[in-house]
């Protein structure tokens, strides 16, 4: 009996891997096409072998190696990005488990970034307090669509999309403050670097736990993210709270019949989901690798939406989310190292896009794979 659940887990993993393989293959085809165009424009005679080798050495190799392509800078970037991606992925996955689609992770991420940076730059609070502030801000921003869903039955997708933009521009306005905000550095047109203003607000490094201002290595953020993923898995699978949340997700009416307060659960699930996205922002902006740019941040943070991809690729499993976030981070970091004059770095997005698209077919793969499995079983008997 337990065997069965184990088998379905294996099938899920296999079909995710199949998605990845096909995605990489299609990405490689795109690279070959671009390499061909580039070589033809170069005017020199070339063979198909040249096309293949150009596509591989100046593009596909980077994608495959990811952050490893340029040690240690690349690996650091990959791990920092992965930590945040795990969090936004968990945000979306957790909401999915409760039957909600949190498309608002991007907005919650932005508001979380504000919470973290405000506590760091203005109050110079220690990093863990800043992180909690980021979580709280994200939680509030997630709870609002949850509230509208629970009490007025307004689809959370619509509210969350609107709150994405409200959050983004609200945060921009607050951080810029007409140029006079204490968080804003007029010279760089970014927020002040956390390292310069409040070293204690930086998340401790991986190498040593003391703060180093220059040459920032990766932080312990990745461990925090993995730990949170494990906690979420436990909450969803082992606790009465998780039992209630999933019951609401599967059947609102049956949950109500069982005396579960589904309104409370919807709001709570959205708040937790928002808090996770907020922590994602905190991990990123408190790592000292980037500052917020209030004047040019006119698009929603991509990490928020990538969380949807991460969650889908992981079939909303918290532990799976860790791996799918690592993977997405791996290929997009690698994409940045491709020869920019031949390949646009967005190729990495194309690959992850194809993979996510294939995730929609995952059900199909699952059925195929399980059919192969059952055929083997039959043969065995």
């Amino acid at each position, binding site marked *: 009996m*337990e065997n069965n659940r184990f088998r379905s887990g294996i099938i899920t993993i296999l079909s995710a891997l199949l998605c990845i393989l096909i995605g990489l293959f299609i990405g490689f085809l795109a690279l070959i096409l671009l390499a061909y165009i580039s070589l033809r424009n170069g005017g020199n005679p070339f063979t198909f072998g040249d096309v293949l080798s150009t596509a591989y050495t100046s593009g596909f190799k980077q994608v495959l190696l990811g952050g490893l392509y340029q040690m240690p800078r690349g690996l650091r970037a990959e791990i920092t990005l992965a930590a945040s991606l795990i969090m936004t992925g968990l945000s979306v996955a957790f909401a999915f488990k409760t039957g909600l689609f949190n498309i608002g992770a991007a907005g919650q991420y932005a508001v979380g970034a504000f919470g973290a940076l405000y506590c760091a730059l203005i109050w110079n609070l220690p990093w863990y307090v800043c992180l909690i502030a980021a979580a709280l801000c994200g939680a509030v921003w997630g709870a609002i669509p949850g509230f509208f869903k629970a009490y007025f039955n307004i689809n959370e997708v619509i509210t969350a999309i609107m709150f994405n933009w409200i959050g983004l521009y609200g945060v921009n306005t607050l951080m810029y403050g007409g140029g006079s905000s204490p968080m804003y550095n007029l010279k760089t047109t970014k927020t002040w670097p956390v390292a310069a203003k409040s070293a204690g607000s930086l998340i401790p490094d991986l190498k040593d736990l003391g703060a180093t201002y220059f040459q920032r290595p990766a932080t312990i953020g990745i461990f925090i993210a993995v730990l949170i993923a494990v906690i979420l898995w436990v909450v969803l699978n082992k606790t009465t709270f998780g039992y209630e949340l999933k019951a609401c997700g599967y059947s609102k009416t049956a*949950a109500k019949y069982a005396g579960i307060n589904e309104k409370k659960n919807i709001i709570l699930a959205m708040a937790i989901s928002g808090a996770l996205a907020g922590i994602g922002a905190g991990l990123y902006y408190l790592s000292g690798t980037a500052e917020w740019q209030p004047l040019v941040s006119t698009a929603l943070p991509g990490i928020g939406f990538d969380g949807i991809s991460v969650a889908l690729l992981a079939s909303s499993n918290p532990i799976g989310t860790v791996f799918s976030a690592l993977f997405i981070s791996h290929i997009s970091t690698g994409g940045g190292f491709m020869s920019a004059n031949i390949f646009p770095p967005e190729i990495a997005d194309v690959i992850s896009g194809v993979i996510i698209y294939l995730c929609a077919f995952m059900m199909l793969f699952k059925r195929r794979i399980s059919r192969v499995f059952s055929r083997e079983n039959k043969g065995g008997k």
Partner: protein
Amino acid sequence: MSDYVIEMLHITKIFPGIKANDDVTLQLKKGEIHALLGENGAGKSTLMSVLFGLYQPESGEIRKDGKKVEINNPNDANALGIGMVHQHFKLVEVFSVLDNIILGAEDSTMGVLKKKKAREKVEALSKKYNLKVDLDAIVEDISVGMQQRVEILKMLYRDNDILILDEPTAVLTPQEIDELMEIMRGFAREGKSILFITHKLNEIMAVADRCTVLRKGKYVGTVETKNTTKEELSKMMVGRDVSFTVDKKDIAVGSVVLEVRDVTVPSKRHKKDAVKNVSFEVRAGEIVCLAGIEGNGQTEFVSALTGLEPMTKGRIRLNGKDITHFSIRDRAKAGVSHIPEDRHKHGLVLDYTLEDNMVLQRYWEPAFQDGGFIKRREVRRYAEKLIDQYDVRSGQGPVTIARSMSGGNQQKAIVAREIDRGTDLLVAVQPTRGLDVGAIEYIHNQILSVRDSRKAVLLVSLELEEVMNLSDRILVMYEGEIVGEFDPKTTTVEELGLYMAGARKQSEVAQYDGE
């Protein structure tokens, strides 16, 4: 030329963990009404799904007019003139009746629908077979009975002459059942052949020409109804003798457990109240039945009683304690258990495992959780106990996903869960809807044992036979009011029927008469 329009020969269909059909043969003559009888999970629906092209059998063949045919999907079935009305209707709820009927068989010129032609055809069919429908109504607004007529018209619109009806009477009122039988006879006279899945023996005796019986996936036999009896059929179906009457001990009733006073509940469908000033009481050791035709306020009353929907007026007391403003959970804690009317909507989280469903009403109890963590081992042990004790059958035991279980076993799981809680009040709404005689007998005995253990039972049922057999007192509900109170020993089904149809009303009876 073969005698049979459809022959299904030696069909075997295997699902993981279960042989749903094992060498089953079924032969359908032209112009006959052929009943397919079997317990829940006997493989009736599977067999019909094979015929309709939804499943491919592992072995066996299907012949139409003596010629072997391949049916790979419902379109193939349709091309052979086979139509099916599923137990759970397949209608687009937000479409009109007409749109639903033509959906999938739309006639159009240059992409523009020819609705007028379609309307004429549907109207003609509707008149010919006396299938009253409102073509412009939206499906979600019409009664279940009318939805079924829409499904039947869908088949007729496609010129099908082999009609499969999967438990068509399970959702109908007694009057609607009579109408349906008349319609079926009309079809047979026209030369159409009808396959009719059921486990109601009375209906088979009344309408079918022949009957094929399945038991646990195996073919038991085919009999002419005029040469058989109800008892014989049920023995073929269950494999043992089944008693149609229950043995009820006389026990003295105890103190008042449930006291309902002036309860008024608003309707969701119209502006009027669905339940008007209903007052009654249920004592320990008695089964009080709320009888009536569907849609007379029983559902709304139970929703208010169990806390699913708010009521506008009135008081509810349980063991003397006022629970009017209690939440659903608090009512459950105070001692109300509830076998809900809709097992898919309320009774089960269909995507949860059977064991998780078994603790749906008590996962929060200290026995099953410790500091917010579910005691998985306890849940498993408890689920196994209930499965064993109440004979709930499933493919993989406690870890079976509830959705994959047969309807009867889903219902048994709910009954097991609710009865085992041992609360002072059991509210059972249509507990045997859609079940076979074996399961009905079993559930009836369970409900009686609840009564015999000096608990109070409020039974809501549309089945008059069940009402007469089980209850100690009968309250008839009509248009949201209690119009009469009866003792099953002194009343008749006919008398109840008159009150249920609103033809008669007792004045002052069954109204709460104070302390």
